[in-house]
């Protein structure tokens, strides 16, 4: 099975096949939702994290579970509540009487795929601890830094309409999520299929892992080698600049946001079977990657940021030679 030749294209081909398998698996379970599935796959392959922002009952948790199952590796799930403590996420050191030493008991973040349900119900303190782990890919407890597993993919869900007893995430924290997506209610046909037993949990139970952490980590590394022409990079910068210049936007996309967009575009290119990024990758991901990072002059829902981002995109011409 091991290939002796190491072509740059070979890794990307494998990454493409893996991405396709992942997307296929997700589509099997999450019927009739190609766009959220695409974005979830992109988020996973770009080495970032995913925030699912939607009302309950549309399959947020199912999506996260499916990703975990299809990706193989370890999976942990955290139910965020106001009384959830940071140490309950990261783990604690306890004194072991028998061995007469401190023993670290890892928390639920030490898994390849972590699902945090109802993230906005955790306290800001807990949210910060979580988001720091997301950014650093490591956790420091009692002065000892411990790396998180590789790959480390965090899927969080939140309900945008639930306000009572929640602590909405601030922009700086939202920035840690590569992609924010909604799922949306299924159409009538799909819902009927769901009721009749196609997709959903039944499909999840039948799902077999399509990969394992080692392959997935290799694929994520390979995605970063995707070729990006200077013109495409310029186009990305132009989009970021357009958000900064827009009168309705208080704070535009940061350089980190541009970088995240580029990485997501690379993952999208691989998913489409290309070894290079085209402007279409950027344009298709600009809204889900950038919208949640914008700070509007009149703070509002994510919906408005999305619409604004969309109109900004219309003003940036596609690069041509």
């Amino acid at each position, binding site marked *: 099975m091991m290939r002796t030749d190491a072509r740059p294209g070979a890794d990307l081909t494998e990454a493409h096949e893996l991405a396709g398998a992942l997307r296929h698996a997700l589509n099997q379970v999450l019927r009739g939702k190609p766009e959220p599935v695409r974005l979830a796959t992109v988020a996973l392959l770009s080495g970032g994290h995913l925030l699912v922002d939607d009302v309950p009952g549309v399959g947020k948790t199912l999506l996260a579970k499916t990703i975990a*199952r299809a990706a193989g590796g370890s999976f942990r799930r955290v139910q*965020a509540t106001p009384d959830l403590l940071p140490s309950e996420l990261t783990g604690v050191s306890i004194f072991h009487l028998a061995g007469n030493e401190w023993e670290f008991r890892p928390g639920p973040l030490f898994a390849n795929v972590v699902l945090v349900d109802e993230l906005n119900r955790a306290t800001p303190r807990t949210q910060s601890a979580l988001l720091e782990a997301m950014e650093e890919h490591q956790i420091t407890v009692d002065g000892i830094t411990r790396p998180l597993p590789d790959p480390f993919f965090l899927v969080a869900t939140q309900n945008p309409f639930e306000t009572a007893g929640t602590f909405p995430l601030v922009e700086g924290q939202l920035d840690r999520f590569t992609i924010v997506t909604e799922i949306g209610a299924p159409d009538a046909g799909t819902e009927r299929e769901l009721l009749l037993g196609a997709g959903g949990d039944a499909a999840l*139970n039948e799902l077999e*892992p399509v990969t394992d952490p080692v392959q997935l980590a290799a694929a994520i590394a390979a995605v970063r080698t995707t070729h990006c022409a200077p013109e495409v990079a310029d186009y990305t910068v132009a989009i970021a600049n357009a958000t900064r210049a827009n009168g309705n936007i208080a704070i535009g996309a940061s350089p980190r946001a541009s970088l995240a967009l580029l990485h997501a575009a690379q993952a999208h290119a691989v998913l489409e079977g290309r070894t290079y990024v085209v402007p279409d990758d950027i344009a298709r991901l600009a809204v889900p990657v950038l919208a949640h990072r914008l700070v509007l002059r009149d703070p509002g829902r994510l919906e408005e940021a999305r619409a604004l981002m969309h109109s900004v995109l219309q003003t940036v011409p596609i690069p041509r030679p």
Partner: protein
Amino acid sequence: MTPGPDSQGGFPRPIIVPKAAVILELIGLALFIVARTTGAGWDIVLLCGIIAVVLTGSALPAFVLARVTIAARGPADATVGRPLPLTLSVTGRAVKIQILTFDSDWIRVDAPGTGPIVVTPQRRGVLTHLRVEVVTAAPLGLARWRRRFRVALTAPIDVAPRREPTRCPIVIGDTLTPSDTEATTNGGNDLTRGVREYVDGDPIRSVHWPATARTGTVMIRELEGPRRPHVVIIADLRGPDPELIASRAAGMADDALRHGARVDLATAEADGPRFGTVPSALHVGRRLARAVVGPPGSGSIPHGATVHHLGGVVP
């Protein structure tokens, strides 16, 4: 001349001179005799033309073949005796190709392009290369040349054995044992267990107290299916008919999986013995595709598992 680092194209070789060329040559000979006996200059001109056409028509296919490059890919898995759709990308025009590895039907290539070609594998194993023969007499159809390629697949194809329908008797363990739960919690990637370890944020009313009491950790109920039976199949290909053993092992593992069992498969692979769980029929096929004659791998056989030993050296 080689299209890629993996694909090797041999040199074009002439194979047959078709009837048309023979007829032309005969006519040329007749013309020569006629011209020599009648002194007809135009027939000499015609003869020169025919010689030139035969020469050109005989040489040109070599140049047509020299331009051909082939790339091939296929699905990761295939089964002996079942149609296997391969995708070939061929640059070249007016040639016909055949996959020698599978003795496939001839298929023509009009223009550079990619397309499917369906073959039927006859042998189990891991397929890394295709032998492809390209034949052309283009453009004049006067002489046929062939060129053979060894085309590396972009990814190897595991050709699973033909399924020999075999029933797999299963002894079903009916109680949860500590070792079962051990497997559950450490397996990690398996969500469909009856109970799982508590994670932060779980509602307190989901705690499965009896399991908590037994294991000493807080366990949470998940309202899903019953325990799966466990089957271990040892496929030892060292017998007189390795292919039959592989086929039987595949059939048996399929049967066990159909009945919802967890299946562990012990085989020998090129780089040593192998023992591991096969989650699906696909994985059964892959494992058995890679299996070679040799001592099968061993592993810890859990309590309550049904063990089937296939093949092996008959004492």
